[in-house]
């Protein structure tokens, strides 16, 4: 039986992980786009991304496009596995597995 991931289960972190997982095989997602997709504020998104980065679920890439700084995020292999496990757990709860 799959396990609940307390870190991912927080609503905004769940959205961040879902957005990054949807883009897992592509280039890292820009901060502004992630903000629009998750409907978060700058401060909220930044703090939750940091929490996910500390857990090793997300990698934050900072670089420059010309002279403009750019922040992007991508889900790590550990994060993918954790997200899949959490989704499996949620499905099992909905389907009543283990009741």
């Amino acid at each position, binding site marked *: 039986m799959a396990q609940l991931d307390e870190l991912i289960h927080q609503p905004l972190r769940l959205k961040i992980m*879902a957005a990054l997982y949807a883009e897992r095989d592509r280039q890292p997602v820009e901060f502004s786009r992630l903000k629009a997709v998750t409907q978060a504020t700058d401060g909220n998104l930044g703090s939750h991304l940091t929490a996910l980065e500390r857990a090793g679920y997300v990698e934050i890439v900072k670089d420059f496009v010309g002279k403009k700084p750019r922040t992007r995020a991508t889900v790590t292999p550990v994060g993918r596995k954790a997200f899949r496990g959490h989704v499996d757990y949620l499905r099992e709860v909905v389907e009543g597995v283990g009741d």
Partner: protein
Amino acid sequence: MGVSRTEAAAALSDIEQTTSRSHLSRGYLISGPILMTWGAIWVAGYLATGLKPEWSGAVWLPLDLIGVVASIVLAMRGRSAPGAGAGAAAGLGWRSAIGALAVTAFIVVTFNLFRPVDPQAPVAYPGLICGLVYVIMGVWRMTRFAWIGAAMFVATLIGYRLFPDILPFWMAAVGGGGLMLGGLWMRRA
């Protein structure tokens, strides 16, 4: 600590909605540059049509070909990234190309069937058809396409009715410029 069935269902629904928004955002990110390319092609084509009407046919064919090839390349570049399926990217590119060719063929064939006597009709017709196609695309998936298509449709009719003498230049500025602005708007979605 576990979660209730209701809470789990709500979380799954959140995941589904976020994934859907993510795919939509990616669609806009890919479509924006393609629309801007077609905007530039319209500016060049309609300016040439306005300045040298006799060159019209010779100018539009290579421009359309450039547009189709550029659309394929941009679609593939937008989809393909390290680890992405090359097959999916190629599929999107070919679908874009076949769609553009189908619209071009439809415009040419219907124009030949109805043979309008008004010399401004062939100038306005592509704007109306492209406007319609974008509205249909927007109704199905990407709403911004619907707004751009509706604006193009109305702008074309305004130019046809109110400014027939400068219609090619109107189409270059309003149609081509509008597509470029629309592409920019999509890219920022």
